[in-house]
């Protein structure tokens, strides 16, 4: 029972961070119908930003998200305006090639600038924990989960209550109709990419105190985010949030009860099963 609770808890906590990465990807996809294969690299940039703020500016990685988010928001927005915008109406394979290319350029530029050394943020709480009964709760993971929940809440409020948020959702639902209703879809695309990049970077900053940072660290996160988004339903923010937590918990439980070497396998089997019975994803609307 202890093993079950312990695994479930750490899985859900880490799943919160996965969810944040997935939400960023799903917003970008929703608004522009482009799968951002450079998403993991944006997570990586967020990690580096947190790292340098920590080592040079002595900013705590959890506090650093206040700087990391606007920084990467700007980066994402510029990226959309200068590069991604040009392929909006291009063939899907061209879009895929473009984002993969951006990812490669980002990771290799970071390698040129900062070498491939592993960087580690060591805070007083990096391996801290406290006990609740038999279960030990990782302090940094709990804090990052709380921040993730707060960020997600703000995001929901933004998307549901504000005019701009509603315009983003309208663009995601039907780009042409939104445009006819007077929504500036170009601006929404820029905003969505900025938002997606910012969220990915925040996720990166949040796991940086317990993980490690190197230029190629992003690639597995791209894949994970992609699975989360497809699982939750392409373009569904709710779906990505739930999907992230499901993937986190599944990984952790599979690690505990089957084998940690096979946890990815379990995740993908679950992924296939959900797609088999609910092809549009958990919260996706079938587009027929």
């Amino acid at each position, binding site marked *: 029972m202890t093993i079950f609770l312990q695994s479930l808890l*750490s899985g859900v906590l880490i799943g919160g961070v996965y969810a944040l990465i997935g939400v960023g990807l799903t917003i970008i996809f929703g608004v522009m119908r482009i799968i951002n294969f450079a998403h993991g690299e944006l997570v990586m940039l967020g990690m580096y930003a947190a790292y340098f703020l920590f080592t040079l500016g002595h900013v705590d990685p959890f506090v650093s998200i206040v700087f990391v988010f606007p920084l990467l928001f700007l980066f994402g927005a510029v990226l959309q305006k200068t590069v991604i915008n040009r392929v909006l109406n291009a063939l899907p394979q061209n879009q895929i090639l473009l984002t993969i290319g951006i990812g490669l350029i980002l990771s*290799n530029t970071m390698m040129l600038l900062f070498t*491939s050394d592993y960087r580690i943020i060591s805070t007083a709480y990096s391996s801290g*924990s406290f006990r609740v009964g038999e279960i030990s709760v*990782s302090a940094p993971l709990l804090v990052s989960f709380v921040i993730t929940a707060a960020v997600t809440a703000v995001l929901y409020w933004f998307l549901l209550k504000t005019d701009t948020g509603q315009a983003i959702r309208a663009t995601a639902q039907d780009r042409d109709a939104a445009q006819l209703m007077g929504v500036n879809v170009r601006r929404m695309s820029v905003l969505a990419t900025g938002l997606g990049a910012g969220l990915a970077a925040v996720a990166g900053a949040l*796991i940086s105190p317990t993980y490690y940072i190197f230029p190629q660290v992003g690639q597995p996160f791209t894949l994970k985010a992609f699975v989360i988004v497809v699982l939750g339903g392409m373009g569904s923010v709710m779906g990505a949030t739930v999907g992230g937590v499901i993937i986190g918990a599944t*990984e952790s439980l599979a690690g505990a009860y089957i084998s940690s*070497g096979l*946890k990815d396998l379990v995740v993908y089997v679950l992924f296939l099963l959900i797609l088999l019975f609910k092809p549009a994803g958990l919260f996706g609307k079938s587009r027929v």
Partner: protein
Amino acid sequence: MKRLVPLLLAALLVAPAIPLAQIKIGVINSMTGPQAPIGENLTNGIKLAEEDLAAKGIKVQLIWEDDTGKPQVGLSAMDKLATRDNVAGVVGAYTSAVTNAVAKKAEQYKVPLVNPVASKEEITRQGYKYVFRVSATTGDYAAILLDLATTLGKPKSIAILSENTDFGVSGAKSARAYAEKKGIKVVFEEAYSPGSPDYRSTLVKVKGASPDLMFMVSYVADAITLMRQSRELQLTPMAFLGAGAGFSTAEFASEKNISHGVFSSTQWTPDVSWPGSKAFGERYQKRFGKVPTYHAANAYTAMLILGEAAAKAGGDREKIAAALHAGSWDGLFGPVKFEDFDGYTNQNRHQMLVEQVQNGQYFTVWPPALQSAKPIWPFPGWK
């Protein structure tokens, strides 16, 4: 492109003017990709060897190939080196997975391959005549650690946690075999897939098995993640034993919270009493601004040996292989000789060492004859 053609032709015409004494040696290494941080140690070690060869009047032309940590990339690098560049020999690769693949190719092409660090046992157990290994094997990694543990204490059980790569699986297999030979019960064994941010569920299971010894085989940064999460879960065995790689890097040691008291098997340390070790460590640090890991010394030695043998044999592959098989060397890596024994061919019997992190610094603690500090036993608990 058109403009390049005459240039290339000119280069071809000029080429014979370069003195023939220069010997081409290929290097296959993980210069980019997730293994790059350790790959860098190999690169730097090889560069120092190149300088020392030049000082002896042996001019080698190195042809660098990056395998990015992937066997298939390593294979095409070997194809290129053996056929297009026509090298006299190759030093490489870094990881066991790549080296195992490359070794087969080297044997087919009859190109002498000197393997600096890859320690999967099978690499030199396939009767290859052109594959030479300076490095110790994973069996040695496990054996020296368990020798230390059984001498200092009386451990009854062991948990083995390894990553599911060639190096990890081979390391775990050797550890199980040796532990059983020593009468230590294996209470937990699992291979994990590397790079995950969360190993807690696995470590909880380890804790449930409450082993006396915790043996881990991990590359670079997973070692830190595993130890951090072990601390979170307050996992306290009699000793943490790491099989080199991720447990013997400066980054790991500098994490004092989690590294204090952890043992790691290693092939070389700057403070070991082999001739020239200390000087090599200082020279490396001065030149590259970092403390070298054993990988640097292994790669240095491999390049030096191959360079000398190749120069003596005038670049003839068959003669080089014969010279490597017959020769013996002594230097900062201790004595090196490629021997055939116990199913191995051209395998160096290397004396393994155990280092322990004590307050953020590595000390050689085993074997007693070569130690620079007394081992701390048992695990002193978390700071």
